[in-house]
């Protein structure tokens, strides 16, 4: 462990001796496993062993970065990087890397995930759980993914640290009919809290309810979002809360600091806590990560920052530095005061959406976008599911939707799948008013 840190520190010292003003090196030794399955059978099992050192250095406010994949050509790579810095132009927004030395929380990564060589049994556990709901006609597919990373960070500005990061995720989509499916996920940072059968059961339950869907009708609906699809919607806001998104006009939150952007019941945080699939104790500048409430009782409180963007916005870093730009690690929405059952019971007429994909914007600054719900889409009347629907699209606005949140459940689930619900989030069931749905004509 300490040998790797020493080698990482050596890179920083070497770069300084060659003339760099500020340097950060981060070495990641990653062990990743993935089982992909479809038609209820394993298609391929994949193992990646990856070693990478990310190096970012500044020379007279010129910012250059590289990745090294071994320690043998460090000198050559650094000389080349500095040569590039010297022919580059000054970055007007670079405000230096984080300074000081910080105490870090002890990593609680699960070593069992490092030693898990063949996790195929978890796949069958999930398929069996889905099968219990659907029956023998089930067709299912998905992935099981495990991650264990040892991370070593050294900075010329003081921060030095070791972290270990673990995660396990099972994503299953189960079909009860050709156009009737459900999707469930199980996400955790530890094997102990990983429940693959819960994902299978959820996928099976939705797929069973989704049988015999009819094409839905256009219009504005009250909608209950399942935690999985809400994870996708939350990821839109999470991407837009980065200070870099503000600076590049890729956000509906430009000029909204201190303003009301949501109802009072909405509290949104970024928090790469121990339970999260994105758990980490420091960011890419070595700043300790922490909980950052960015929407508090509906008021936009902060953007997510690294040291440079924080200087521009005259504030302090929030511990969200990526290598180049700040970003969200893991989002939490505070639990509401009502149960999931109450949300449904109080719905006179509306939709229950369970998953979505292919979210695309017309204009990030304005927020107009559409996304296509998939898997179970249900018409709810007087609190009960009346009809399974298909072929509807959400065509709405990211800021308007945030403002239209009307109910949040007590129940929450950690969700993540593919690039559609990413970063991971702790999402509740959410009732939103007046969501615009369109369809093909």
């Amino acid at each position, binding site marked *: 462990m300490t040998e790797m840190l020493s080698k990482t520190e050596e890179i920083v010292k070497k770069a300084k001796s060659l003339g760099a003003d500020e340097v950060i090196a981060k070495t990641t030794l990653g062990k990743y496993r993935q089982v992909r399955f479809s038609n209820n059978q394993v298609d391929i099992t994949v193992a990646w062993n990856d070693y990478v050192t990310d190096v970012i250095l500044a020379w007279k406010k010129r910012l250059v970065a590289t990745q090294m*994949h071994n320690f043998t050509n460090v000198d050559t790579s650094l000389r080349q990087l500095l040569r590039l810095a010297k022919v580059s132009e*000054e970055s007007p927004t670079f405000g230096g890397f984080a300074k000081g030395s910080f105490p870090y929380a002890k990593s609680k990564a699960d070593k069992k995930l490092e030693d898990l060589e063949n996790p195929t049994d978890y796949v069958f556990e999930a398929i069996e759980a889905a099968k219990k709901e659907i029956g023998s006609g089930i067709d299912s597919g998905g992935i099981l993914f495990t991650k264990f990373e040892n991370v070593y960070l050294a900075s010329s500005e003081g921060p030095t640290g070791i972290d270990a990061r673990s995660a396990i995720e099972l994503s299953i989509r189960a079909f009860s009919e050709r156009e009737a499916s459900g999707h469930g996920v199980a996400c955790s940072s530890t094997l102990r809290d990983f429940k693959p059968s819960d994902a299978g059961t959820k996928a099976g339950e939705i797929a069973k309810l989704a049988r015999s869907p009819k094409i839905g009708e256009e219009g504005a609906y009250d909608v209950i979002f399942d935690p999985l699809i809400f994870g996708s919607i939350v990821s839109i806001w999470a991407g837009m809360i980065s200070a870099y998104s503000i600076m590049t006009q890729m956000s509906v939150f430009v000029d909204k600091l201190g303003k009301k952007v949501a109802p009072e019941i909405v509290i949104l945080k970024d928090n790469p806590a121990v339970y999260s699939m994105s758990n980490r104790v420091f960011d890419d500048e070595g700043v300790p990560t922490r909980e950052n409430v960015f929407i508090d009782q509906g008021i936009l409180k902060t953007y997510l920052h690294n040291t440079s963007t924080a200087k521009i916005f005259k504030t302090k870093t929030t511990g969200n530095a990526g290598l180049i730009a700040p970003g969200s690690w893991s989002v939490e929405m505070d639990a509401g005061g009502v149960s999931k059952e109450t949300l449904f019971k109080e719905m006179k007429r509306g939709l229950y959406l369970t998953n979505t994909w292919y979210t695309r914007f*017309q204009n990030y600054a304005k927020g107009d976008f559409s996304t296509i719900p998939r898997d179970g889409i249900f018409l709810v009347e007087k609190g009960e599911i009346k009809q399974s629907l298909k072929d509807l699209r959400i065509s709405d606005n990211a800021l308007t939707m945030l403002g239209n949140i009307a109910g949040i459940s007590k129940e929450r689930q950690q969700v993540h799948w593919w690039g559609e619900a990413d970063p991971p989030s702790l999402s509740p069931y959410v009732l939103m008013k007046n969501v615009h749905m369109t369809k093909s004509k």
Partner: protein
Amino acid sequence: MDEDLINCALEYAQTKKIEYAEVKGQSQTADRIVLRNGNLEAYVTAVDSGFCVRIMANGGIGFASTNKWSKSEAKQLVDLAFKLAKAANRKEKLSFAKKKAVKTKWTVDQKRKIENIPSEDRVEALTEVDKTLASCNVKIPATISQCSIDLITKYFVNSEGSRIRSFVPKIGAYFFITVAEQGKTEQAYEQFGYSGGWEAFNEWKIAEKMVHNAKVLKDVITRAKRLAPGTTDLICGSEVAGIAAHESCGHPMEADRILGREMSQAGRSFIYKGGPYWTGTRIGSNVVTVVDDPTIEHSYGYYLYDDEGVKARRRLLYKDGVINEFLHNRESAAKLGTRSNGSSRSINYDREAIVRMANTFVLPGKLSEEELIEDVKHGVYMKSFTEWNIDDKRFNQRYVGREAYLIERGELKQPVARPVIETTTEKFWTAVDAVSKEVKFDAATCGKGDPSQGVPVYTGGPCLRLRGVFVK
């Protein structure tokens, strides 16, 4: 690249009880310049080099990769891939469609080697675009631009005797602008890509295109009118025709998707065995022939051999409006009792090769763009698009116009703000009554796979004329 190590790994794999083994080494030099508002934001350069082993044993597939180049690592990798293949414990055993062994080397030429272009020249070339934009009389509060270089060397060997070496240089650029007028904003981006050298950069005419986009966006804010929803004729510019060909022809024709292998991520297809659509089913009018062709020289999606060592060729996906030929790798081809047509691609040594498009477009017709428009009494010309998406069975799609105009009595009139076509694949392609003769390609990055593998492709094509479609 240590080819001996790759050969050794294959030899070691062949000592085991396997049905098939392959080893692929890949070295990729990547260089990224990112500018914000014309200022250099970051310069990232890296060489990533590693190899992977894919083994079929007991009808299952195991895949393992590493970036540590050592004999002991190679041996461990083979052992691991073998173990993972057997652990699949499949009831239906997998196999690969047959192919002959190939021993060859292929490369892409560069007139001006991109690795010889100083980084400051590349920064300056992008900065010039910002300078031009700054003087175009449109308020542009934010730009993001990027120039990318990838030098990709591969060495592929398999247990059937194939030995394929390749070198492909790729250059790409991306430009995103936000236009603000009258307190409102509009946004647009363009992507550029080429397999070859720096000679492409000037040919792209990025500044000219982005100035045009800036003026179009200004017009959308200041002059364009919303369309009254209704049934009308629609001319799709090459950019819109291209995204439609990619999304509602290329993707649903991927055989792995048809067979369900992507069901939980990119989804399935409206085409499936026993369903209403299969090869031989009409899906569009007889003027519609959509092809996917990796062999277009210097195209962004160019390759001569795919990542399973199968020779690339043009595929006729929809032929004269009829579903004709799926995109296959060796696994999907074996399942459907045919041969691979060379559609297997991976983005790096650490990703399995899966069924992908290369350059997908509608074959040109005989009319000029003007002739297409002349024959429209009342309609819309959607020249380019902004928001778009399609459902995961690839049947319900939506394209929102970026640059669009009203057509009255065969002439282009005032700009139209954000016209939308939201329709089915069958309605879209059936409505096409004419195709223009000029083909224009656009570079794009196609997403698929888990972990995601964004592969370079061309979309674009000729212009299409659709009769009587609902536009809002």
